[in-house]
């Protein structure tokens, strides 16, 4: 892989805003005038554009610039944070003064180490020649027009097509009291297609998105976007035939890929360091214990090239890594940011993330998935006598403290006598995180990652994430539907 000009971000903050080594040292020096355990500065300059189509025309183009600086001081468990959207020396100093004032009882780092210039992350997971925000808007408009024509030609029942393409380029720079000084440029693209189909007075929708940290050129070709539109239309047509979902406890087969959002909700959040330090997670103090059936191995991996959840460095400047969370059913590790790692006596794992400069970092997932097993997916379906085959989900939510999770199926079928039969509508799965992984009875050999659409919300902050899994059979899970 090449080492491109990732120092573009550091150069941007210096040239455009005058933020150089002296400015960083002065601001960190201000926060360190009182003893603190750690202090850092986070600079962000993010451009985003989107174009959206509905009713056959691109009605609007959007372009947004988000810029700002956040200054943080930590002492013990306390954090002081101040942020401003002017990036200039005065704002940075003012924020530094504010941040240290409320975190002034610590001890530890008192001096700034020698820096020697901004570092480039030691891996480059998203090398691109042309930032997606630099692709001319006309090409994005043409893409959406083509998607509209193609979707309407696919099936006569298609009555509405909504499509959008979102391009983002995020420049960030982090400088910390331990000598960290690193910058990164993080591209992100996303293409969304939503269709409404009508037949016999019934109306249903189908949605599919795709994206990642890559060039836009990959989705501008027909080979790139046709599968997305095919999938959205297929989903809508399936739902047109869907019957009410049965309610009750039954065996469930989860399809590969995006249904990995179950892992994200059911166990991922419960393994984030902050909840475990505070002992508010059902997984607190359980390292080394069996938390899942044998054969279940779950990892969080921020280093997969081009994926939506991947990062060269996290938002605290820590290099990302692959972290084994559960190995053959045994709980092995938590996901950590610097604060929680320090307080728990563990190493940071590159999971310190924030939505923007206006937010404090927290331990967050990157790409979280279950490794493949041995079983043939067809055979897994046949192994269930009567149950539910859940292929795709709209999203989910978890209560960390009692472990209860819920998620909503957007494509699901009944399984009757080992055969997949009628599609069902309005199905919801509910369960208990620590319990559900002990009920995994079959693991497919077909690991897939999702299409690159996940956004995880925690404490009001959204960050892009990835999920994945092979086909799974889970015994006896509650399915919420309307047919008693």
């Amino acid at each position, binding site marked *: 892989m090449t080492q491109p000009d990732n120092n573009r971000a550091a150069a941007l903050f210096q040239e455009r805003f005058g933020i150089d080594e002296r400015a960083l040292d002065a601001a960190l020096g201000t926060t360190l005038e009182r003893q603190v355990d750690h202090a850092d500065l986070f600079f962000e300059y993010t451009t985003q*554009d989107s*174009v959206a189509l509905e009713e056959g*025309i691109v*009605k*609007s*183009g*959007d*372009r*947004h*610039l988000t*810029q*700002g600086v956040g200054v943080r001081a930590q002492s*013990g*468990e*306390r954090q002081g*944070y*101040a*942020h*401003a*959207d*002017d990036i200039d020396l005065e704002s940075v100093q003012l924020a530094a003064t504010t941040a240290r004032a*409320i*975190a002034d009882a610590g001890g530890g780092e008192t001096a700034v180490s020698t820096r020697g210039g901004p570092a480039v992350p030691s891996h480059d997971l998203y090398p691109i020649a042309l930032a997606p925000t630099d692709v001319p*808007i006309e090409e994005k*408009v043409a893409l959406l027009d083509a998607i509209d024509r193609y979707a309407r030609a696919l099936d006569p029942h298609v009555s*509405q097509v909504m499509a959008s393409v979102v391009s983002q380029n995020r420049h960030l720079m982090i400088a910390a009291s331990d000598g960290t000084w690193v910058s990164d440029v993080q591209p992100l693209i996303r293409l969304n297609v939503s269709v*409404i189909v009508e037949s016999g007075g019934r*109306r249903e*929708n189908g949605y599919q998105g795709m994206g990642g940290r890559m060039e836009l050129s990959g989705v501008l070709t027909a080979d790139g976007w046709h599968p997305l539109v095919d999938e959205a239309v297929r989903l809508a047509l399936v739902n047109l035939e869907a019957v009410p*979902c049965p*309610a009750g*406890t039954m065996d469930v087969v989860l399809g590969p890929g995006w249904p990995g959002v179950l892992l994200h909700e059911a166990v991922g959040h419960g393994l984030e360091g902050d909840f475990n330090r*505070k002992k*508010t997670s*059902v997984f607190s103090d359980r390292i080394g214990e069996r938390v899942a059936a044998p054969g279940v191995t779950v990892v969080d991996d921020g280093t997969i090239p081009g994926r939506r959840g991947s990062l060269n460095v996290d938002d605290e400047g820590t290099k990302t890594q692959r972290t084994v969370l559960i190995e053959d059913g045994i709980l092995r590790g938590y996901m950590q940011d610097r604060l929680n790692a320090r307080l728990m006596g563990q190493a940071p794992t590159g999971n310190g993330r924030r939505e923007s400069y*206006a937010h*404090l970092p927290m331990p967050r997932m990157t790409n979280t998935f279950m490794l493949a097993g041995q079983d043939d997916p067809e055979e897994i379906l046949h192994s269930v006598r009567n149950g539910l085959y859940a292929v795709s989900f*709209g999203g*989910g*939510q978890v*209560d*960390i*403290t*009692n472990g*209860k*999770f*819920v998620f*909503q199926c957007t494509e699901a079928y009944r399984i009757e006598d080992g055969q997949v039969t009628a599609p069902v509508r*309005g*199905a*919801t799965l*509910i*369960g*208990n995180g620590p319990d559900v992984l002990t009920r995994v009875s079959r693991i497919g050999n077909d690991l897939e990652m999702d299409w690159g659409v996940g956004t995880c919300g925690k404490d009001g902050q959204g960050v892009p994430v990835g999920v994945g899994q092979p086909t799974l059979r889970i015994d006896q899970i*509650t399915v*919420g*539907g*309307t*047919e*008693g």
Partner: protein
Amino acid sequence: MSLELATRALERAVAAGAHSGDAVLVEDESTEVRVRDNAIDHVTQARERCLGLRLFVATEGGLRQAITSTSDLAGDAVDRLAQDTVALARATAADPNAGLPDSGFALDFPELELFDPADADIDVDRHVGDARAAEAAARAVDPRIVNSEGSSSDSQLTRVAYANTAGFAGDYQRAGHSLVSSPIAAENGEMQTDYWFAVARRRSELESPESVGRRAAERALAQLGGKRIATCEVPVIFDPPTARGILGNLAACVSGYAVYRQSSFLAEKLGERIASDAVTIIDDGRLPGGLGSKPFDGEGLPTGRKTVVENGILRSFLLDHYSARKLGLASTGNASRSAGSAPGVAPTNLWIEPGAQSLDELVQTMGRGLLVTKLFGHGFNPVTGDFSRGAAGVWIENGEAVHPVEEITVAGNLADMLADIDAVGNDLLWMGSVAAPSLRVSRMTVAGE
């Protein structure tokens, strides 16, 4: 100052070739403190300023639109933004319905009690004190309150300035104060958490920290010992915090955008019965002190009071200028506009009119059924009305609470749920700009064991 900046941006835009447009400048100052037990977890302070522009260029067949925003207001950045926005608009398609309202802008600016000058003095220490008081009150309720996710106190002061090329310019200030407490109750190895929050425009109107902490603790304690129940079809009562979630789902279905896109199950129901006659829903953007109150909407049109549902009959959608034009109707003053996003439709202050009975009376007269106190997940499809969400609450037999219930779902179709509302409580509770009293639905599917 803010209005001048908005107006100047528009002048530059017209000079750069814009046919028309509007500009919004939002300035925010905020402080937030979170405390866990007695210790400060974090303090965050911020000030932000963001300019949003919406510009139209004229071409054959209609106007073309672009929307931009920036927090870079230095030097010639605003000039460049205006030029870029015009260039962006030229790349989009002509839309015969696009454009600003040409008349009917707000003329009067009533006093809406959106901030209290006395609150300017609230400092970090006051927030720390309030958050600590909420935390202490939660822990004092019962020895089984053993831990917490913390208690937070925050204040925010926002100034909004809006101007358009049709001649309207106006600005206003609003404040927001809130308190949240999230204690954890534990017993026999089981942990349960819940939260309570209070939010108000004036600090003096905020529920006390002691009350917020106590109610949060009581809700967490009430879930200890929760059981699953057998799958059944029973009457279901939603308490005010969960009922407001259902009203939020309904609000999305009466938004003009969902209606003209035919992506709402209520799209063709204007003037028809969509709920039982116990249901009346009002949207009023000028409620004094209201969390959704403002003198004018995101396009400069006056906010006002409208009946959305009257005794079960759908009387009005929520509309901005564009969605109204698409539907051949008039804007209802529900344009929402933040600096960093495209205009859309949102409720102002939206509520279900309270009925006569208390929550206790609704429970007593229910017989056997479920009282829902927690809903989670996002299982609602506006196109079909299908509703299926995770829930927790209390099982009721003979009109009395028997035991807590957890790990269940409640499911139905919103059209049926609205028709089956057989009683509305007298306990309307404002926890935001969308509010509801307790609602009783005569029949829903509860999925459990």
